[in-house]
């Protein structure tokens, strides 16, 4: 018992450490944004328009095959942009349970979604998985999966700064852009601090901690982590003020729409329109 608890706590810690390290490396290092792929070569404004159209199509579509088609289209875009497919698919679906499992799983059952029973889990009281329940859950998963894929793809192939610049050029309200910018810094500091803490702990620990100790450490360090990254982001804000920031960051941009940008925007719009039509 204690042993398996220990293993679980160990696994939780390993997973947390891996997740933070991988986000820090993959998103914040912006390595993918430098690859000579298709999306990387596009004007960020074009990309934002493309992805908005595609996200709209995903949220409007009421047909499973069409949703599947849109998801496959995101894989095609990823492949054209030299984003390793295995990495991409795994990233999206690994986190999916966190996002949707909580909503999708109850939808399977008869008391939430009435329909023809597919699988009887319990006869008294009657608990069955229904066909419509499965459909609802599948829709939900696929819809969120496809949306998250599109979003991740945009972020992976566009330097964050360029994304914020493009949003401000596209006249998205400054408050929104500022919030996004601060969120990014905050999350970065949070992850960075978390990674440092995992490392600091690793370097101090001799032998294994028991599972109660493990849980206590995780709980205590999460609290410390939040307050530390809050202090840090407050200091970051001061550092911005100190250098003349007056509520709205001025940015330099050298965006230029080329034929390729128009072309891909048109392709994405066409895909979105067809998907919306077919998925009515």
């Amino acid at each position, binding site marked *: 018992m204690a042993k398996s608890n220990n293993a679980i706590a160990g696994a939780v810690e390993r997973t947390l450490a891996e997740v933070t390290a991988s986000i820090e490396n993959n998103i914040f290092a912006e390595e993918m944004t430098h690859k000579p792929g298709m999306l990387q070569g596009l004007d960020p404004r074009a990309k934002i328009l493309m992805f908005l159209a595609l996200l709209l199509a995903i949220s409007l579509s009421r047909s499973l095959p069409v949703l599947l088609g849109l998801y496959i289209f995101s894989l095609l875009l990823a492949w054209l942009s030299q984003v390793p497919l295995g990495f991409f698919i795994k990233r999206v679906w690994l986190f999916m349970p966190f996002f949707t499992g909580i909503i999708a799983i109850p939808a399977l059952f008869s008391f939430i979604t009435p329909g023809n029973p597919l699988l009887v889990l319990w006869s008294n009281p009657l608990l069955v998985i229904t066909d419509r329940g499965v459909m609802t859950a599948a829709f939900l998963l696929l819809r969120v999966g496809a949306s998250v894929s599109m979003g991740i793809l945009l972020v992976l192939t566009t330097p964050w700064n360029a994304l914020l610049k493009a949003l401000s050029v596209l006249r998205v309200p400054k408050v929104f852009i500022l919030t996004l910018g601060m969120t990014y810094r905050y999350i970065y500091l949070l992850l960075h601090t978390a990674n440092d803490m995992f490392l600091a702990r690793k370097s101090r620990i001799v032998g294994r901690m028991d599972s109660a100790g493990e849980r206590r450490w995780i709980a205590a360090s999460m609290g410390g982590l939040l307050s530390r990254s809050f202090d840090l982001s407050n200091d970051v804000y*001061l550092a911005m003020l100190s250098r*003349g920031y007056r509520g709205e960051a001025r940015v*330099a941009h050298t965006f230029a729409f080329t034929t390729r940008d128009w072309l891909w925007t048109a392709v994405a719009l066409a895909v979105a329109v067809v998907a919306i039509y077919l998925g009515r």
Partner: protein
Amino acid sequence: MTGMQRETLFEIEQVVFSYDQKNLALNGVSLEIFAGERLAILGSNGSGKSTLLKLMDGLYFAQQGEIRYRGTRLTSELLNQENFAFGFRRAVSLVFQDSDVQLFSPSVWDEVAFAPLQLDLAPAEVEARVAEALGGLNITTLRDRAPHRLSGGEKKKVAIASVLSLRPEIWLLDEPTAGLDPRSQSWLIDFIQERWRQGNTIVTATHDLDVLDDIADRVIVFNEMHRVEAMGTVAEILSDEELLVRCNLAHRHRHYHFDDVVHEHHHLHQGEHQHTHLE
């Protein structure tokens, strides 16, 4: 001293500040800073050096007492006024103790361009200032790197470049030499001296007695009660051993000599191997 004839940049009067309304970070601090001088703020950990610099940079505000910049009292209302803030931020710059908080942009270029962009300079002028700052610190090769992935010394240089591109007259440096290797440290001292020869005012917070002589003419010493304990020239302060021990800048410890007798000494920590025995 010569300070008498110079313009007074900052008048700090009986300033009290606490982050949490319980523990004081500054407890009635008074001093003046003159144009063109090199001042060091000396104090042990937690004595309030960083806090004072943040107040002088108009990031926090005195809860009692006041700070006047060129005769004008710094308040949060004043710093919210566009034209005052513009002139003040342009003239006064703080290099933070922790480079990580100062570096928030995705690339070194963006980091160094941040301040000139906030001044609404023309793109060509921004480009020129960034190039000059990167060149001046010999870090042009880092321009496309992510600041948070650099080494500590490189980060410090980028942090300094990000302020240099603003061309401030007044530099507030918070422990600039901490964590730098000897070569970077001596480079930084040269940099400070060069800025000073150009007419800049340099205020440096430090607890490094070693570099004092190179970066300061005048020293103020904070004690652990978050007050100013003493003020004087570098020579005066360094020769006051009792003061340094009292303010926890030098300490007493035991060690063995070759004759196997235990000696107890006051130690001034100067350099890695050179100790000054005080008794």
